[in-house]
């Protein structure tokens, strides 16, 4: 006999342990089945784009640190590329290599957190997260050596990086590179064939390739849906065309695939770092530039493949010391467009892991 049911609205967040920060959704449920959700944003809107209009080009770098705060180096890189494109600045060779090493280390760190948080959402309360944090601490140590900060590095500048690598950096990096593959194997042993993980994540929250493209989804989420699109290969920035690496893709685009995708991307990042370490030339790390950069009137869009997807900066200059307009293309916000289609028809418990598998940072969504 069919039971007559009535939909009801459940409010999740903005303070909820599984919403990764201050994110809120209004879910319309029928019993335990999700009919629709409506994300509500803005609990961390800090006006970064407005503040950027009042600062000098160099002074904006610290603001970009706080966008996607678990991958500050990537944000720095994207912003500096945009300024360089706008002002036509050439970056010294050594700085390019240092940037690539930093960006890839940052990718590993951010993906570690993404994977850890995803497993946390799957129900493995905090244990995998602590494992991932153990390795992240080592990467943070490396960053601390070069920038003196543990989270908001503010290391890159238009025209290079703020300072050269310290002496003890390379040995420490080498040590890390020897260790990391072993850790990755450890995760694989623990998790890849894990019954519970497969039962919870396989076939859940499928996003097809067409849908993903139509929703402008980018990054690991797009590639997990089988679209071979990585800006490092498709539109190589910095010196990524000199390295030999693969773009892993998955077939179905479910939560498990997104998890696998992230793990495989970490391995590719290790490959890039290893090559960059070998080729690292010596020389200056910063181009000779005036204190205040005054790019000519015009506009530029520079984008990179950040750990979460396509991160871009759209700068409009009016030939003054501050940008006229600084728009940030936030991968987290745009990836969330697809969330609604992914969760409809799944249970509430699945909603949590589908949401976790997209991997967002609220600082970047709200800006």
């Amino acid at each position, binding site marked *: 006999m069919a039971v007559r049911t009535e939909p009801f609205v459940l409010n999740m967040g903005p303070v909820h342990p599984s919403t990764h920060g201050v994110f809120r959704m209004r879910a319309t449920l029928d019993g335990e089945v999700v009919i629709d959700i409506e994300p509500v944003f*803005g609990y961390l*809107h800090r006006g970064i784009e407005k503040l950027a209009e009042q600062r000098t080009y160099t002074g904006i770098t610290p603001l970009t640190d706080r966008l996607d705060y678990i991958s500050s180096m990537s944000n720095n890189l994207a912003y500096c590329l945009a300024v360089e494109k706008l002002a036509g600045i050439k970056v010294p060779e050594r700085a390019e290599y240092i940037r690539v090493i930093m960006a890839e280390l940052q990718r590993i760190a951010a993906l570690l957190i993404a994977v850890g948080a995803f497993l946390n959402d799957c129900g493995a309360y905090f244990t995998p997260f602590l494992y991932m944090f153990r390795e992240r601490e080592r990467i943070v140590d490396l960053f601390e050596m070069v920038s003196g900060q543990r989270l908001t590095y503010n290391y890159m500048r238009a025209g290079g990086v703020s300072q050269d690598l310290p002496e003890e950096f390379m040995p420490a990096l080498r040590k890390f590179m020897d260790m990391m593959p072993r850790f990755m194997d450890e995760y694989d042993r623990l998790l890849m064939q894990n019954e519970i993980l497969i039962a919870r994540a396989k076939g859940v929250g499928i996003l097809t390739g067409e849908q993903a493209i*139509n*929703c402008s989804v980018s990054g690991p989420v797009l590639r997990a849906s089988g679209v071979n699109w990585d800006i490092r290969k*498709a539109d190589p920035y910095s010196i990524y065309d000199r390295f030999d690496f693969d773009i892993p893709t998955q077939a179905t685009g479910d939560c498990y695939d997104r998890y696998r995708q992230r793990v495989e991307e970490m391995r590719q990042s290790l490959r890039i770092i290893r090559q960059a370490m070998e080729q690292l030339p010596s020389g200056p790390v910063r181009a000779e530039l005036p204190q205040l950069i005054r790019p000519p009137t015009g506009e530029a869009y520079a*984008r990179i493949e950040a750990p979460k997807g396509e991160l871009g900066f*759209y700068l409009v200059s009016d030939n003054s010391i501050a940008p006229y307009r600084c728009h940030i*293309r936030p991968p987290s916000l745009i990836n969330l*467009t697809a969330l609604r289609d992914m969760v409809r028809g799944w249970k509430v418990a699945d909603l949590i892991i589908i949401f976790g598998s997209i991997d967002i940072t609220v600082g970047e969504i709200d800006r």
Partner: protein
Amino acid sequence: MTIPLSGKDVASKIEEKFPGSVVESSQDNLVVKGNFLLDAARFLRDTEGLDLDFLNFVTAVDYYDHFEVVYWLSSLEHNHSLTIKARCYDRENPVLPSVVGLWQGADLQEREIFDLFGIKFEDHPNMKRIFLWEGFAGHPLRKDFI
């Protein structure tokens, strides 16, 4: 390498299909009239050889006397990109057609522009403030917002 399409070439194609729709075009610039925006966008997405099926971002710039809305499109298949722009001159009640029906990725970004610039997108299913709360006075990213 993503190749930026020449604004001039694309403009002549659009002009051929929809006469009088292009305001201005140069190598890296293509401005279409607001009321032709939706037609032009559909043309760019569906035409063989252009196939601009990926909307990278939408944003707006305030130039005091007018707003300029910027659409950055690219094609994953041919690996090329194109920027098109549309202007609105009405400061009190700026309106443009919404492209959500073509690229769903524009959904949240158009809401963001509505919130921060006050540009209304017609036919958007949920044209509400996104970051700031209902009842907030003004639009922060306008240049005259203090």
